[in-house]
């Protein structure tokens, strides 16, 4: 079967790849572009571990075909830090120990960053609903929510 040629932008860089029609964007990111930050938890859009932004919109990369990425702008967890300088959310997750096994963490960072860009001053309820599609089986969520709320506060004060 002939492969599909796709040109897209990932974390600001133009990227070309060949993929099978059945491959998801998550398969492409991990197996063709070696961007293994997005994780496969369920593969059916329930867990959010594969969250990425497509044209600024938060989506599950397991629920999108690689072929659909043509001409899109994709942002993954690998693009969150500026070189060696971690994003405020990443620093705060370390400070709060808002992770244990870490499988859900990339998806939660991408989702939380997307929220704070839309709403710099979310309520705790808004954060909890926004992240309802990001499952974490380790932390009980409390440290994650507090880390996001505190990052939002720091970022508001810094701006």
């Amino acid at each position, binding site marked *: 079967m002939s492969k599909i040629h796709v040109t897209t932008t990932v974390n600001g860089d133009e990227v070309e790849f060949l993929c099978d029609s*059945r491959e998801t964007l998550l398969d492409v990111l991990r197996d063709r572009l070696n961007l293994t930050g997005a994780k496969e938890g369920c593969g059916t859009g329930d867990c959010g571990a594969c969250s990425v932004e497509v044209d600024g919109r*938060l*989506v599950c990369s397991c*629920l999108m*075909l690689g*072929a659909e990425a043509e001409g899109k702008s994709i942002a993954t967890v690998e693009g969150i830090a500026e070189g060696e300088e971690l994003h405020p959310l990443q620093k705060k997750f370390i400070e709060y120990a808002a992770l244990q096994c870490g499988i859900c963490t990339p998806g939660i960072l991408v989702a939380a960053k997307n929220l704070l860009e839309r709403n710099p001053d979310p309520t705790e309820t808004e954060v909890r609903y926004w992240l309802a599609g990001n499952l974490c089986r380790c932390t009980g969520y409390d440290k994650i929510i507090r880390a996001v709320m505190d990052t939002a506060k720091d970022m508001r004060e810094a701006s």
Partner: protein
Amino acid sequence: MKYHKPQDFDEASRLAAGAKGATRFLAGGTDVLVQMRADVFTPDEIIDLKHIPGVKDITRRADGGWTIGIAVSGAEMSEHADLHAEWPGLVEAMDLIGSTQVQGRATLVGNLCNASPAADSVPAMIAAGVTVTVTGPNGSREVAVEDIPTGPGKTALARGELISAVNIPARGDHGGDAYERFIPRTEMDIAVVGVGINLRLDGDTVTEARVGLGAVAPTALLVQEAADAIIGTTLDDAALDKLAAATSAACKPINDKRGTVEFRTHVAGVLARRVALTAYKRAKG
């Protein structure tokens, strides 16, 4: 699997009509990709509709109504201030589906054509009087939303036919709509019962009403008896009792892990009351 990118709906229709194997149309993909992953359905041809001009547009028509492109996501509907203000019940019903991530892709037409009896947007669309434009080998026709699903996972669409637009009527004056569902959790769940009501007032009196009912029959239902129970009333307690009774009477639910027949039938009436009162308050402005 062949991946197609038609440039208009006629081409999409021709591709589907001429396909040799199993075919799926792709817009948001939040059901199609799950079915592919679970090996529930393995398409030989997938027809991505997102390269057709206008499919991501929310457009005000000359008659005051709205045309929603078939690839407009739930998040895009929720962020559209005018649409949300005029049709809060419909927009909020769509917004109840799935997570933030799913909202980034999921569409009204996908929710309708997946034909789950529990689809949240469908009772709300039925209540609002939404129609869809169906394009096929013999041209296009307009079909009421309640006439699309024919059973769980089944639609009235023939081979080569697809939905090419969603048409929301003009809001008009003194109207309001609302949708609520019952789920055992607060988020990320499938409706055990869902009720959408849209009504119009003249002063305090209900002059028009439509009641859509979901998750309690093989398809979402338009319940005329429930609408008749409140038309001509001021939504007093007697009218609400009749509404609840008529809504419960229309239920033909199944027993499953999410709710029993008795529970679903009772809750349908309870929700109808609440939803009618919310729609009434919104219609009062």
